[in-house]
């Protein structure tokens, strides 16, 4: 490095790094420390219990249930969101007709982009409150009301949505209904992300392929998808984090926050109950730390598996 540059860079970085250490890293370290104690959360009495809290995690039935619910989201949220976002992005960028100006998106694609992106500007809690009205389980609910009017749903037996614990494909219905919201609210952002990536793919590749007689189907799976590999991989990691969280939706939308009768319990809701209702902060911190470790491992694994040669153009 040239003379003086190091000092220049350090000068700019010192303050943000210090703030980050104090407000982010230090609380994390504190939480890790508390996870080794039996702290109740309301006093300064903290007894050291070693790894007891972590050992307890493995025999906790509720945590096990919550873990599998998170795994369900971990698989489905990225899968459905990315699939939908890719489909939309493809239509908006290269799904339309071709003319002298080259390949373009379907008619009105700029307008659709704004519409699809819209959920992203809303806070998750606002989305949850809004969907509560859509999912409302009587005639005043948007879905139930419409279906009752056209006679598809019996007024005495409305769709229960997030109050429905009956399993569908082995997973409580309430989780599927929450999944729908997560995918709806996430797809727009990834559509824009994929659109940006698609626009950086040179149009002449498509034109060459089309001249050779490639169909829409082929251009998507042979050209678009392989060239988006990096972006999709990163998107998958981001969505994995969202899937491991899901707290706002569960907290706002499900009965008794994780119900009915634990049917939508996730890591974060059990953590919240353990810390704030049961007053076992030490144990709750152990849950938080475990989730953090799990998340980091998952991200590392994901990025490593998908790493391969990159094409530059």
């Amino acid at each position: 490095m040239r003379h003086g540059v190091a000092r220049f860079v350090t000068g700019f970085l010192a303050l943000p790094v210090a703030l980050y250490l104090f407000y982010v890293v230090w609380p994390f370290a504190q939480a890790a420390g508390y996870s080794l104690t039996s702290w109740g959360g309301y006093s300064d009495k903290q007894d050291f219990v070693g790894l007891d809290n972590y050992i307890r995690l493995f025999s906790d039935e509720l945590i096990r249930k919550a873990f599998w619910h998170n795994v369900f989201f971990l698989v489905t949220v990225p899968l459905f969101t990315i699939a939908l976002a890719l489909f939309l992005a493809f239509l908006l960028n290269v799904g339309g007709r071709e003319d002298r100006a080259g390949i373009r998106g379907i008619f009105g694609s700029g307008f659709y982009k704004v519409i699809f992106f819209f959920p992203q500007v809303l806070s998750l809690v606002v989305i949850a409150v809004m969907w509560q009205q859509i999912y409302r389980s009587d005639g005043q609910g948007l879905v139930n009301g419409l279906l009752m009017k056209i006679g598809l749903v019996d007024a005495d037996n409305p769709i229960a949505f997030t109050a429905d614990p009956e399993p569908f494909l082995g997973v409580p219905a309430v989780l599927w209904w929450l999944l729908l919201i997560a995918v709806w609210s996430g797809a727009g952002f990834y559509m824009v992300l994929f659109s940006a990536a698609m626009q950086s793919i040179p149009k002449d590749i498509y034109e060459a392929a089309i001249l050779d007689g490639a169909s829409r189907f082929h251009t998507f799976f042979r050209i678009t998808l392989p060239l988006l590999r990096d972006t999709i991989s990163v998107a998958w990691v981001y969505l994995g984090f969202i899937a491991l969280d899901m707290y706002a939706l569960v907290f706002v939308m499900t009965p008794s926050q994780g119900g009915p009768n634990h049917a939508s319990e996730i890591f974060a809701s059990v953590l919240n109950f353990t810390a704030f209702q049961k007053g076992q902060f030490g144990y709750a911190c152990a849950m938080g730390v475990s989730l953090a470790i799990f998340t980091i491992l998952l991200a590392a694994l994901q990025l490593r598996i998908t790493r391969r040669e990159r094409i530059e153009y």
Partner: protein
Amino acid sequence: MSVTPEHPADLNRRTLLRRAAAAGLLVTPAAGLLSACAGSEPSKSDDSGSAKSKDNPFGVKDGSAVKVVVFNGGLGDQWAKEDKVVFNAKHAGVTVNMSSTQKIKTEEQPKMATQPSDLVMNSGADMMDISTLVNEGAIEPLDDLLTAAAWDGEGTVADSLLPGTVDDGTFQGKFYVVNVAYTVWGNWYNGALFTKEGWEPPKTFDEFFALAPKIKAKGIAPYVHDAKHGYYPRWALMATIWKSAGRQVVIDIDNLKENAWKADGVLPALQAWEKLVKDKLLLPGNLDHTQSQQAWLDGKAAFIQVGTWLKNEMAATIPPGFEMKVSDYWSLGAADKAPKDVFAGAGEGLVVPSKAPNKAAAKEFLRAVLSKSGSTKFAELTKSLASTKGSGDGVQDSALATANELMKNAPKDLIKVKFQDFYADLDKESQNLSEELMAGRLSAQQFVDKMQAAADKVAKDSSIKKQTRA
């Protein structure tokens, strides 16, 4: 176009940005959860007061400030502002910094171990677990408040309170929580509708089951309930259990006595509710508290069970001509042990954190809250009784009048259930099971078995501190 292997050295701008973004996001899901656990070092509190007198029993220092946090829920927060006026009339030199919120736990819990507010109204869905606060020594015993002279009446503060108020705030032999609102629970109906149709509000389940077909014939669902918060149906279930099985059985349940849930009278009480669900007397749909209350106001259902805060909570949307009246929970019949006992008690608790900087002023403020002038304002503003005697005497209101009437005819024993305050696990389990029973997914027998199993588990768990009541 060139194909190059990725190598750590050839960081271009795009990959750098992408990685930075990935690293930043790496911490997001864990960040909120982890930082929720973090606290900070405790600080010393300053509780030095000035001289104590009859008019200033706790020695409030002139020129000091007291921070009061009010829960702004069903009762609103205007009553507390009136109490501030009452307080300042006697202590003009003390500054009252009042704020109101619905997020009591979110905002106050992190400060409890270090620099809490002086007086916190611990109420609502986001309240701090009371047994944990007591066990951790985080709140101050207020026995000296009870023995202090009443603000503007005869005798001590304790003398001026309605029955049950001291009991409701007592944990492990000490008085910790000043519950300001006196709540009466029961089955609510529209008096105007019942008069018009010539219906008599039922006293027993049998009477209700007899009336239900007539209500249904008018296109009205006989009953609606909150299906989103398990503690709503739990009030009704436990009230029926108390009436049917008697006081001692509920005390045994609270004290985790062996097979307490299997005592005589518990199962029949739950079976009455099971029948109500099986006979399809509930309004379809899983509504939450305000939605179900609105459905009742809109005339879609005849009965709803809830407490006396109902009037204030729904004030904005009560249709003209609607006559809110409360009647006692239904009993089962001749075999009942305590059919006349009323579900009532003091709620909406104010607590003084142990580490509060100005505890003297906090206690003095409580004395003002419990005063005659303060409590009368409270009843006027909230249409709910205060826990000070005589607060509702001058108020003209059908909801308050029927609640008053109910209390006048009530025996001395009030229905009182404590296990949910004692043990968070049983709280959660009983809420879940109540929801399941009311959704028709659980039978009365299963409810009993599952509650017994949960109670046994808590009883055996040595890490849970046990509490008892008499």
